[in-house]
């Protein structure tokens, strides 16, 4: 009868005996250990590796500061740093400007085509980064780029108008690629901003410009600054763009330098680790300042729970201009890239559009892809990995969130921080850390598909946390407490009350993680081995082999599949999800 526990897991009254047998503690303990292992251990190994010499059969590895010395003594490092910052800042600014303009247009103006645009905004998310880069190479490379060719034909010159293989080109492609994220971030910011604050300024007699400068900008500042930092961190972590556009012309940033150090012969993992730690410090700084701004922004937060009356500005005739901007954006981000892939997939050999090429249209590349030896394995691997890691992440983080939000266990906030650590790890750095970790401790995981699974679960833990936290804070505590009062055990109430009520959030997070898992390249590229390729790796290899046509066919199929998947999942979610309460 003296069984002891508490719905709120109140552990601080340590003088009371605790019954160990309760499965609740076993589940919670297990989850906490898994998260701690995933988030911390590889990081420790990475730091360790950065202080070791490369070990060979004859010379065992020893402690050294040489890696850091090598990384920092070279004048190239300064250039590397400058390149990285220039690239990341440029990308972030471009994405932010585009995203903010689009968000303002959809949220605060009467631009036509708004609903259509909103639906369209999700599509860029399903185009894998590597395909986006490749399609822009087809569009804007100096030799084969369609834009150059079209202009040359039109103007009768052979001048190169745009060159994607340059810093500007890198910023252009990556900036466009991150614009949808900036759009989503800024849309949320505009929605949280109560228009009545601007209206009351207007009633006090301020001019339009005065309102914009003294109210709107001030209110939006935290959101803009936080979004900039998020985008900066994302772009400094980018791998596809620097690898495909920068490396061929010798523009190196940290991510491509890490990749180079590992793939040079003999591979220098210690040096890569030293670069990785530097990159990590930069991203950590970015995330730190971003969270500082966001938490200070609390006083600016104008979310009152009351629905704002959306006030839209009547643009008059200008609305055709803004609608035009929508179309140009859609053209740049979705339509042109997809069309150019589609075009090249229908050729036998890559060639630019012409009447002659049109006559050669064939489906041969698709046939090749279907019979391509590694494609079947890769598709199967990606399928298993994305479903498996999405499910694992969502369930794990549901329990973690529950512990953080619902118990009074000491140190529960640390757990939240712990699960957010992977956020600061660039994909390539995470791949490196996991590689070093499982190569060192052995256990036969390296070289199997499990190492990719571990990488994906770790990488996407923070996304799961975000989706679960948002939906769990909305879940009134009393809903669970009334289950306990009804006599339900912890497990029953978690299974029958908490999880079903979180279903919409769980499903949304699950879909998102499935998509990003399929797109994942930067961790996988260090962890795959023959037999455990995933789809993004196959695309990468095809690019390296110059199989552009096959790559395009595969890309078109992949985008189509992801599109169908997202639509189906959303339809299922609407149909069978929990009705709005």
């Amino acid at each position, binding site marked *: *009868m*003296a*069984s*002891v*526990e*508490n*719905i*709120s897991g*109140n552990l*601080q*009254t340590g*003088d*009371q*005996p605790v019954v160990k047998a309760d499965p609740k503690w076993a589940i919670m303990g297990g989850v906490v250990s898994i998260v701690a292992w995933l988030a911390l251990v590889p990081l420790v190994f990475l730091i360790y590796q950065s202080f070791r010499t490369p070990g060979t059969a004859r010379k065992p590895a020893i402690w050294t500061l040489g890696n850091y010395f090598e990384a920092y003594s070279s004048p190239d490092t300064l250039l590397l740093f400058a390149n990285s910052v220039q690239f990341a800042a440029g990308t972030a600014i471009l994405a932010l400007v585009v995203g903010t303009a689009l968000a303002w247009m959809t949220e605060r103006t009467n631009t036509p085509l708004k609903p259509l645009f909103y639906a369209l905004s999700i599509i860029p998310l399903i185009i894998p980064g590597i395909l986006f880069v490749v399609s822009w190479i087809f569009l804007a490379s100096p030799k084969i780029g369609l834009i150059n060719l079209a202009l040359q034909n039109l103007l009768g010159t052979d001048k190169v108008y745009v060159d994607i293989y340059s810093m500007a080109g890198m910023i252009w492609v990556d900036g466009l690629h991150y614009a949808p994220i900036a759009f989503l971030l800024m849309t949320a910011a505009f929605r949280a901003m109560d228009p009545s604050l601007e209206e009351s300024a207007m009633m006090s007699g301020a001019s339009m410009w005065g309102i914009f400068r003294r109210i709107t900008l001030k209110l939006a500042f935290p959101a803009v600054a936080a979004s900039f930092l998020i985008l900066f961190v994302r772009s400094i972590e980018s791998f596809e763009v620097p690898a495909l556009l920068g490396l061929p012309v010798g523009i190196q940033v940290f991510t491509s330098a890490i990749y180079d150090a590992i793939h040079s012969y003999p591979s220098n993992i210690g040096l890569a680790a030293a670069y990785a730690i530097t990159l990590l410090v930069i991203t950590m700084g970015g995330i730190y300042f971003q969270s500082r701004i966001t938490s200070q922004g609390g006083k600016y937060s104008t979310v009152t729970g009351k629905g704002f009356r959306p006030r839209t500005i009547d643009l008059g005739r200008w609305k055709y201009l803004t609608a035009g901007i929508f179309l140009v954006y859609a053209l740049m981000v979705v339509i042109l890239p997809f069309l150019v892939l589609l075009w090249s997939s229908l050729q036998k050999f890559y060639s630019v559009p012409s009447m002659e090429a049109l006559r050669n249209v064939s489906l041969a590349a698709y046939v090749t892809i279907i019979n391509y030896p590694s494609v079947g394995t890769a598709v199967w691997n990606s399928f298993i990995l994305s479903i498996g890691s999405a499910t694992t992440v969502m369930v794990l983080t549901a329990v973690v969130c529950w512990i953080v939000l619902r118990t*009074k266990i000491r140190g529960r906030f640390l757990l939240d921080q712990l699960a957010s650590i992977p956020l600061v790890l660039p994909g390539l750095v995470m791949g490196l850390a996991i590689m070093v970790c499982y190569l060192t401790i052995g256990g036969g995981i390296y070289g199997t598909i499990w190492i990719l699974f571990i990488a994906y679960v770790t990488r996407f833990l923070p996304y799961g946390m975000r989706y679960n936290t948002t939906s769990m804070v909305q879940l*009134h505590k*009393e*809903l669970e*407490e*009334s*289950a*306990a*009062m*009804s*006599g*339900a*055990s*912890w497990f*029953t*109430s978690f299974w*029958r*009350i908490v999880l*079903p*009520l979180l*279903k919409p959030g769980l499903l949304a997070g699950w879909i998102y993680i499935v998509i990003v898992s399929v797109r994942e390249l930067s961790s996988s590229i260090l962890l795959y081995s023959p037999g455990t390729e995933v789809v993004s790796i196959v695309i990468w290899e095809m690019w390296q082999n110059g199989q552009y046509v096959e790559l395009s066919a595969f890309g078109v199929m992949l985008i189509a599949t992801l599109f169908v998947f997202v639509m189906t999942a959303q339809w299922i979610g609407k149909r069978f999800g*929990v*009705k709005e*309460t």
Partner: protein
Amino acid sequence: MLTVKGLNTEYPSQKGPPVKAAQDVTFEVPAGKFFTLLGPSGCGKTTTLRSIAGLERPVGGEIVVNGRTVYSSEKKIFIPPNQRNFGMVFQSYAIWPHMTVFANAAFPLEVRKTKMTAQEIREKVMRVLSAVALEQYADREATKLSGGQQQRLALARALVMEPELLLLDEPLSNLDAKLRDRMRFELKRIQRELGLTTIYVTHDQGEALALSHEIAVMNEGRIVQVGTPREIYEHPRTKFVADFIGTTNFIDGTVLGMDTATGRWNVRTPAGDMLVHAVQTLAPNMAVTVSIRPEDVEVFEEAAPAGSGLNTTSGMVDQKVFLGDFVDFQIKIGEFTLLSRAHPSMRTPIGDKIHVRMNPEKCVAIPDISSARNAA
């Protein structure tokens, strides 16, 4: 039936000492009675109720229900809430939005240890649903109920488990005034019919007086008085209780001595000397506050018909407010202003002389805390 002894519950606070939300809470509820915890916002009512439920873990004390100790700091016993078999209705109702009305009410039966057949569950649930007049909504989604219906569903869910104890946390506070009145009667009827021992939390004194067999008035984490509604209303033991429940006149005074003819204490006040009812023992020269309800201050235009041992005096009408069911007079007696609530037929104009009569039984003398301590 329910015994709570020396209950202490604390909440850890970010900085500084923990919040002592319930301190030394002690009371007893006999079987089948309706017991109310009443007090202002933040006084620890919910904390006390949640401690009984097992949703908070107290730091000290003992809770015994039907001879079963569910919590004891001394014996290190803490029964988790899901093994206590208490029904609870939450302030937010906590209706599960992903289930139908029936599924909500059936949940407690489905999760209990002793398994029941679907048929048994169905019968039980339907019986309870019809007791709260929801049987025709059984298959409806729970979110598609009105506020009052949700409240009844929450009650049904608590009742279906045939709880040993029914715990209610301000269940009527989310309803509009009309519905609240109706549900108050419903609640009283159901509780009396089923004979359920009930602990009810509210900050609404009217609700407490109307529903309860017994009331515990709480302030700042402590119980300040326990008694029947009539006792609490007529004979408050502290200024706080007198003030919190209803409106009252407070008259500061000093005890003169015992009046030999009536056996009552005589108190000198700015409104004249008066005989009083004492709840606690008094002593001469003690500083006291006399509390008298406005409706117990009788007013007359002619000299009051003197009864034996009644306090009489006279004053001047200073203000009056007509409120329909009654008239409030503010009467100046010397420097003192006394509030009286009279029948609307009283029409004495402002500035006229008016006679006042107060039954000593209703003039409750409450010792001032400092002087009470000195006398003790």
